[in-house]
């Protein structure tokens, strides 16, 4: 059995964003916003 073909690791630019760091920041900031909304939801109905 052969090993899988060599992967092209040339890191393409991610879609929409200019760099991967921006993508990671987007995911983490979005997560922070979601938690904030959850917190406001909790406070509003407690």
């Amino acid at each position: 059995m052969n090993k899988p073909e060599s992967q092209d690791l040339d890191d393409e630019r991610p879609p929409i964003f200019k760099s991967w760091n921006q993508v990671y920041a987007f995911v983490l900031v979005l997560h922070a916003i979601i938690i904030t909304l959850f917190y406001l939801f909790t406070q509003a109905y407690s």
Partner: protein
Amino acid sequence: MTTIDWIVMGGTLSFIVAFGVWKTRNVDNVRSYLMGDKDLPWWTIGLSIMATQASAITFLSTPGQAYQDGMRFAQFYFGLPVAMVILAVFVLPIYYKLNVYTAYEYLESRFDLRTRTFTAILFLIQRGLAAGLTIYAPAIILSSILEWPLTYTVFLIGLLVIIYTVAGGTKAVSVTQKQQMIVILSGMFIAAIILVNQFPEGLRFSDAVGVAGKMGKLNVVDFTFDLDNRYTFWSGMLGGTFLFLSYFGTDQSQVQRYLSGKSLTESRLGLLFNGIFKVPMQFLVLFVGVLVFIFFQFQRPPVHFNSANLQKIEGTAYEDDLVQLEQQHTAIFDERQGVIQDMVGAIRQDDEAAISAAQTQIAELDAQDDAIRSEVKDLILTVDPASKTEDTDYVFITFVINYLPVGLVGLLLAVIFSAAMSSTSSELNALATTTVIDLYRRSLSKDKSDGHYLRASRWFTIMWGVVALIFALTANLFENLIQAVNIIGSLFYGAILGIFLVAFFLKQVGSRAVFLAALIGESIILIIFYLTSQGIIELAYLWLNLIGCALVMVLAYILYLLGMDKPKPGASEA
């Protein structure tokens, strides 16, 4: 169940299986079978990762948990997006660079063959037993609700999964998981809409949510730092990140999902897709549980949600006692109705004093009702001491079976079966891949043809499927087997994670140090477990995960400092 429900459920499940087999009919080499041709786009990877993690128990237990305990369980997943980012940055490029089939292959290039084999065997023991539990846990609930023998539900889940997983391998798993996730998410959305539509006339949605909030069910975020409290923001962010790093980074059933991506970019986006959508999905599932809670504020819930348990009492000397308890339960419910209407009025007028008074009254009535429910459980145990009286897992399925319109009952049951099948297929696929790649091809039967390894992969998938079925069929014979599986997992999972963390982050530590550390660490874990089982020390077995991981890392580093060995040349480049 009506004929239409049978058609919807049978049609949905048959379509998914047939589609999976048909779509992967051309899989004729081992790379396609185990890596899915590495042609999957990011959104298929993302859905596949989510489907693998979300088992049937997720959709049976989680709404019940919200019904009982509110939405705080959502915090358990708060560390997941952070873990996805860490894996996308540090771990994924390593796996891609080395072109590995399994996570454990990486350990050979980083350390040596024995470390790879040792870790692969630990994974096989742990995941092999868990696969049986993934079938057994929903099968026992569905058999109870549908009044089918357990054998039927076990075989329905197990055989369907084996058919398409054996036929199409990794690609079949990913293709079917896409369909399964669509069914699951559609089903949960529709259930939420139906629930809202079944609220009493005149009750606004905001009133209903307000009532749930005043009864403490909308406690999504809790910032208090309390080690005894299982679900807080801090336990989710700290413990959750650690847990999800180990699960998504070292468990082959997940690693295999994102390694089948078209490129590093697609795999990264797949992981991040999971990071973005997992928490909102859990919120939705929990919110469905809250909606079920609201529904049962206006519709009398059964005194015990597992109807099979209540049937055990019928025809016995305790039947009259049960009838009496049910009457008391109904009387409390009727009294509670008036108080809830008062609370709705108070919420509309923003009258804090009246809200507080209603809360106090409801708490008193709930305490009385809890006492009645406990008495019912005692009756069940008197009739059959082997009964399991915890009925939280039966809350959502009771609503589905009794209150959803014709057709949707079949769809929601298809959701539960789909969730069970999606997790099990990933597990069988990962078990077969690890067996072939890390043991059979590497150490037992080298340099055979591609066709040989393809056939071996299919046979190992069947073998693990049979193991899972046997385990699922016999699990009910052993009272503590489920707990035993969890304990076995905790015995090994810490060591596995410790080995990987040394590999990733302690680049100077070599193979002899990590292998010896893993052996010593695992031995200490087994000794601690023995002392715990003898009552000499007291320790919850979940802590063994953390202790095992820490022991391997600390011992490996100490052994390195003592000059045990040096890492393989080039290992730091991995």
